[in-house]
């Protein structure tokens, strides 16, 4: 049996891959007593589970029911918006929301944003380069995704400080921050403020539609009255949140991966056309989503283990992406790796809606960093780098670099 079940042990947070290897080898469908659910680590199991109709993505409703009891009915309505996030819904509710929002994020639509993305990255670097050093996440990486998603959704980019603060608070709850006892209250307050902010913009767009996603959702609502106001607010908040937390983390982890693998960094710098396979490899090697949670919808067996209805399953994408049965030398970074069937964006009906946008934002950012900063290097001892103590998300706290 594995040495321990503590998914938030400091050494697991700092570098989860050795622990995931051990789990996969010893007990690939493992009952984790500490977390209270099954932990899956094999690539084939994780990929199949994303498509398994016996599993539900709705892990929020049972949680909110429990919370309502605990808080004796004192649950702010804004908190229920989380349950309407399409990532937490099953068909047919999921299908309707997904198909509506999907239109704004197709590869062809986001390709049209490439020039704008390049301009935002270049403007930021123009401003940052004279200093010769920066903290890559807060000075740089978070600004691009939040700017792009705000424009796409149709909220003023000048509000990005507020959006980032609300998102950070929501992150504490959604990504299961360890050691933050008031994370639910903080997320609830943030969601309430964000919902009010979005509601005001929705009211404006109803009178004066523009070429943005909020207006498109309102237009869809007018054609199909099954889309409620609450669903529009929930969907907008999900797009804002999903549109930047994870992409910020992908940009920082990609940069970090290259800084720790100088030969790969030089290879990519010398041939920027490798960026397509490189971005897939950054996603596989140290992607921002470590895991997704599913709920058993019925009793069934998986590798001889009895999964019961209502039990939680942790689909460890990061473990699947380092499965030696699927990937040669899984712990090595290879920017030319192809094919690369990673599950960093999930799989099946919940496959990341924003994947095309995340791919293009990361590709433009990394190639621009390499081209404009030939002396890019870590500005801190690698041993001092820290990751957020979260089970489902992989996020550096800070990445000081010099150039």
């Amino acid at each position, binding site marked *: 049996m594995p040495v321990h079940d503590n998914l938030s042990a400091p050494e697991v947070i700092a570098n989860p891959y050795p622990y995931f290897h051990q789990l996969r080898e010893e007990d690939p469908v493992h009952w984790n007593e500490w977390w209270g659910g099954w932990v899956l680590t094999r690539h084939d199991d994780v990929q199949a589970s994303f498509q398994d109709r016996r599993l539900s993505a709705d892990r929020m409703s049972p949680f909110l029911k429990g919370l309502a009891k605990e808080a004796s009915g004192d649950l702010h309505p804004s908190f229920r918006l989380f349950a309407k996030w399409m990532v937490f819904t099953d068909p047919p509710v999921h299908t309707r929301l997904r*198909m509506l929002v999907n239109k704004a994020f*197709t*590869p062809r639509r986001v390709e049209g944003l490439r020039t704008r993305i390049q301009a935002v990255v270049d403007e930021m670097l123009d401003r940052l380069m004279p200093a010769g050093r920066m903290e890559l996440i807060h000075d740089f990486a978070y600004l691009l995704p939040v700017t792009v998603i705000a424009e796409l959704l149709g909220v003023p980019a000048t509000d990005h400080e507020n959006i980032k603060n609300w998102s950070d608070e929501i992150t504490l709850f959604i990504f299961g921050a360890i050691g933050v006892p008031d994370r639910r209250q903080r997320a609830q307050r943030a969601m309430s403020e964000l919902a009010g902010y979005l509601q005001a913009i929705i009211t404006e767009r109803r009178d004066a539609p523009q070429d943005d996603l909020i207006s498109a959702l309102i237009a869809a609502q007018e054609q199909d009255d099954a889309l409620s106001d609450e669903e529009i607010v929930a969907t907008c908040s999900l797009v804002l949140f999903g549109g930047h937390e994870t992409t910020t983390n992908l940009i920082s982890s990609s940069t970090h991966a290259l800084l720790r693998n100088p030969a790969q960094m030089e290879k990519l710098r010398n041939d920027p056309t490798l960026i397509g396979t490189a971005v897939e490899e950054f996603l596989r090697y140290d992607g921002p989503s470590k895991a997704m949670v599913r709920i058993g919808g019925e009793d069934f067996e998986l590798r001889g283990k009895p999964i019961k209805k209502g039990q939680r399953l942790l689909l460890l994408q990061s473990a699947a992406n380092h499965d030696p049965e699927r990937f040669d030398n899984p712990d090595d970074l290879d920017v030319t790796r192809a*094919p690369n069937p990673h599950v960093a*964006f999930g799989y*099946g009906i919940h*496959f990341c809606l924003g*994947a*095309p946008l995340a791919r293009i934002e990361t590709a433009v950012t990394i190639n621009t960093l390499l081209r404009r900063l030939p002396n890019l290097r870590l500005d801190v001892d690698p041993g001092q780098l820290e990751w957020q103590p979260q089970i489902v998300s992989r996020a550096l706290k800070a990445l000081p670099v010099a150039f």
Partner: protein
Amino acid sequence: MRQLRITVDQDKCVGSTTCLHTARATFALDQSGKSSVVNPQGDGEATVIEAAESCPVGAITVEDAETGESVFP
């Protein structure tokens, strides 16, 4: 109506099902959980193109079956 050759790249497909929710008569999920073409004449050309465009991984290509000319992307 011209005949279309519709291809789903099996290495790229992630089973998101956006195509089969758009062009219901053309695409279906196969045993492996990936999309495949069950009837190239199942839906009109505009619907097939909309389905190809909806794919989050760009796995679907459409061409004129007779001339081989690319219709999408």
